[in-house]
């Protein structure tokens, strides 16, 4: 047992390429740590996570017989695993390692107090050493993993992720909330930069997904609960009835009288409560919109009126990983924002796209029955909002992010307009044209060439949209300070105003709580690290695909979905997963089976008191089932005998760390 | 290497390399000479007092960008050190070999 060995601690203070050493005097820290008891070597390094740095650690373990390693560097989320792997390579148990965050929690937050930061680094490192003395070797919990994944969301990202996972021989359950798959992409027409029809593209993808034997699709379904952990999640899926059958579908469809605004066309048209959103949708069978159909009787061919009923069914699916592909909602402008909701000539870009699709046969663009000769697009509606300038939304948030796709989408739409309605005058009110992607700049060029007039406003001074006075040539006037015309104020008379609305995350609070994933300040789902692990969440086994994570266009959603699929396959492909060993462990010598731990534990099957026969005597003792233990430690606080602890996070380790922080460093006077 | 019949002697290898790189060879040899000369003049310029790059450049009559390149190189290989600032310019001084 290494416990019995003499402690040999190696301490490393990383410069982090200057990130730490610019503020913290790493050399002094290293020197002070070198004189701590049990420390056999204390080094600094420019970049410890580099191959050379890691080799140094390995070398010290091999050559100096180091059996505990303490590293002060960046946040543990970044490189704890990296360094544990270095220990493994050197033949040391990876849990004999203590990570100290000196960057995010020291050098980066005390840049004005170098002495204070150095002193703090010493205390934190000392605490790290104190904990390291009390570390024990641990083994990860190895479990069988379900070779099945759950994909939540049947939009383009979800479909693509499902297909990519299934193509690697894993099974997939795809859950879509609405009765039809395809998501937001189905509402588009031609897509940039190839001008292909969105639904044609989608149809190709859906066909592959549907025909793949490894994919099971649930539409009108929702994930109601998730239990378990990576490799062994159990998700409860509730599926609503479709309400119609192959036989009666068409008859019901034509007999249904009740109409509601059609969300597929963003409320521009109405549809029946038994519906099919567009021809060629999947599944082709119409569905009942249970939110709006409240049991109104429908009479079929003049027969007896029948009442349709929703009988939800519940399915439990066991999956090893979960792909969240819940997508986005277009920003809904506030009442009166640029005249939206007040002037009938103000629409959103998604609405216009639907309007164009519905009225393509027409030779002239019409809105509300009036011909449109002049149309203005306003960018950044619901995006790039500025604190102190823009009014916060109902929940107090400010959409200060860029929605990434609206610039190209707007310019692409102006191209569609110019092609169909050559005489149209188009104005484009922007802050910065962000046609960043491959081929996107061409849309800007073509819009210019096609005579679109660009007017540049500042986010601090939005354009004003007002109704024109009676007798004016146009119904709506836009007043805008144009920075391209030396900040002179211009008046633009138009027949139609189109708001290029941004993307917002969908309302998925329930799911977020269920999965325990985090959201960023923009309220989109948060990845672990944008570069190291861009599609993974902090929850092991839960990955992100598409616009649930942030604004993306179709191409980017597809890439993200495929990348997410690659992670899932890498995770589950071998059929087993490893879990961190940070679970409760009972000290057999101290435990006398009081059961206080069992009483407080909220996790089913995590802990139980069992009776053993030892030396002819019956003893009661608590026993932990590691796979079910969350490691919360509720049992630790209540054990009267201090007989239970969370492995790797023990109470005595905390006490040692507290003591180290409370005490002083011997030669610290040099620092101040 | 399996494809080679017999291991050539060191002399043969050097001869072959000299032939293969005949053009660069002459250039590099001239470069080495020039580098030695420049090393000497720059180092002697900053042996006694620390100087900035423009000061060295003026003293040794070389373009400043080139002087900076040498200074950076000498610094990398431990031949000189920074010794504070003179206005916006760092000062460099020769390190005497122990």
């Amino acid at each position, binding site marked *: 047992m290494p416990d019995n060995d003499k402690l040999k601690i190696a301490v490393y203070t990383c410069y982090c390429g200057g990130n730490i050493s610019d503020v913290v005097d790493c050399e002094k820290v290293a020197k002070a740590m070198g004189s701590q008891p049990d420390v056999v070597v204390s080094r600094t390094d420019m970049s410890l996570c580099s191959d050379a740095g890691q080799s140094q650690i390995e070398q010290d373990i091999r050559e100096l017989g180091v059996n505990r390693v303490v590293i002060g560097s960046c946040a543990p989320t970044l490189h704890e695993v990296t360094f544990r792997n270095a220990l493994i390579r050197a033949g040391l148990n990876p849990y004999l390692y203590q990570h100290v965050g000196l960057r995010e929690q020291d050098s980066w*937050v005390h840049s004005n107090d170098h002495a204070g930061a150095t002193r703090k680094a010493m205390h934190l490192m000392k605490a790290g050493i104190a904990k390291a003395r009390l570390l024990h070797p641990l083994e990860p919990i190895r479990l069988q993993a379900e070779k099945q994944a759950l994909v939540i969301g049947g939009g383009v990202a979800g479909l693509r992720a499902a297909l990519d996972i299934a193509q690697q021989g894993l099974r997939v359950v795809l859950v879509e909330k609405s009765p039809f798959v395809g998501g937001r992409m189905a509402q588009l027409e031609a897509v940039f930069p190839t001008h292909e029809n969105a639904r044609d593209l989608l149809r190709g993808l859906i066909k592959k997904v549907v025909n793949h034997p490894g994919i099971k699709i649930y539409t009108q379904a929702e994930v109601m609960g998730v239990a378990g952990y990576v490799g062994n999640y159990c998700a409860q899926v509730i599926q609503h009835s479709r309400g119609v059958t192959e036989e009666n579908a068409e008859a019901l469809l034509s007999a249904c009288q009740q109409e509601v605004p059609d969300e597929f066309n963003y409320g521009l048209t109405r549809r029946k409560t038994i519906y099919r959103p567009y021809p060629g949708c999947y599944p082709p069978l119409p569905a009942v919109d249970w939110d709006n159909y409240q049991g109104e009787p429908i009479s079929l061919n003049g027969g007896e009126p029948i009442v349709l009923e929703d009988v939800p069914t519940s399915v439990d699916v066991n999956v090893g990983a979960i792909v969240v592909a819940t997508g986005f909602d277009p920003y809904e402008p506030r009442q009166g924002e640029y005249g939206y909701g007040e002037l009938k000539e103000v629409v959103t870009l998604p609405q216009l796209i639907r309007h164009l699709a519905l009225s393509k046969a027409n030779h002239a663009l019409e809105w509300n029955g009036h011909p449109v000769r002049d149309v203005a697009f306003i960018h950044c509606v619901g995006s790039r909002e500025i604190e102190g300038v823009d009014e916060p939304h109902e929940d107090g948030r400010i959409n200060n992010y860029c929605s990434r796709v609206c610039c190209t989408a707007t310019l692409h739409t102006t191209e569609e307009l110019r092609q169909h309605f050559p005489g149209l005058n188009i104005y484009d009110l922007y802050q910065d044209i962000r046609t960043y992607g491959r081929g996107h700049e061409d849309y800007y060029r073509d819009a210019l060439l096609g005579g679109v007039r660009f007017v540049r406003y500042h986010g601090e001074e939005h354009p004003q949209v007002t109704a024109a006075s009676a007798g004016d040539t146009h119904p709506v006037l836009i007043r805008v300070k144009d920075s391209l015309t030396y900040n002179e104020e211009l008046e633009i008379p138009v027949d139609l105003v189109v708001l290029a609305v941004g993307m917002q995350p969908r309302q998925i609070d329930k799911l977020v709580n269920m999965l325990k994933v985090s959201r960023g300040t923009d309220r989109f789902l948060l990845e672990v690290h944008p570069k190291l692990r861009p599609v993974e969440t902090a929850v092991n086994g839960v990955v992100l695909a598409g616009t649930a994570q942030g604004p993306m266009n179709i191409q980017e959603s597809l890439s993200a979905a495929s990348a997410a699929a690659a992670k899932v396959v890498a995770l589950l492909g071998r059929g087993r997963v490893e879990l961190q060993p940070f679970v409760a462990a009972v000290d057999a010598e101290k435990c006398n089976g009081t059961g206080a731990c069992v009483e407080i534990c909220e996790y089913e099957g995590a802990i139980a008191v069992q009776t053993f026969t030892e030396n002819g005597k019956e003893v009661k003792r608590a026993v932990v089932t590691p796979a079910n233990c969350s490691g919360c430690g509720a049992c630790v606080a209540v054990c009267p005998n201090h007989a239970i602890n969370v492995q790797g996070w023990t109470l005595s380790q905390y006490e040692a*760390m507290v003591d180290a922080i409370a005490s002083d460093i011997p030669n610290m006077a040099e620092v101040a | 290497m399996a494809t080679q019949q017999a291991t050539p002697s060191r002399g043969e290898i050097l001869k072959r390399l000299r032939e293969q790189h005949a053009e660069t060879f002459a250039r590099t040899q001239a470069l080495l000479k020039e580098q030695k000369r420049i090393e000497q003049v720059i180092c002697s310029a900053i042996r006694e007092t620390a100087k900035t790059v423009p000061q060295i450049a003026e003293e040794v009559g070389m373009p400043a960008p080139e002087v900076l390149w040498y200074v950076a190189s000498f610094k990398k290989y431990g031949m000189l050190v920074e010794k504070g600032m003179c206005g916006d310019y760092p000062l460099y001084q020769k390190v005497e070999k122990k």
Partner: protein
Amino acid sequence: MPDIAQSPQPKILVLATLAGGYAGADSTGQSHLDYPANTYVLPVMCPVMFPPEFFVRAFERGIDGIIIMYSGTDSPYKVEADGTAKLINRTYQLMKERGIDIRRLRLAAICTVCVKPFLKEVNQMAELLKGIGFVKNELASRNASAQGAPA
């Protein structure tokens, strides 16, 4: 013996959950926002593991203020929200018994990106400690008065 003169400022210990406060502290670092350097953040999985005695012990060892930054109801642990609240109440009881100003212990829900709330908590505690001073002095005067007071 620890020398007070070497520690110019009272020490603040932050017990921060990995899923909440600790990540929030990292976010603060990523935003490069300054706060007092006498703040020491230790990661915890879930604060319910600490018995009230742990906190009192920490104060007695010379930690002047403790902030528990947990994830509240957003926690990955079912017990965290209620359990921590109960724990705090019990600890306050114990602190009162030991004559420790209960303002030295605070509970705050900090999310992974709660940069501003994190700074607010830390700065508030720092301000408070400026006012009420070192815990050692407080304990010393209590001991003195306890000894001086009639039994």
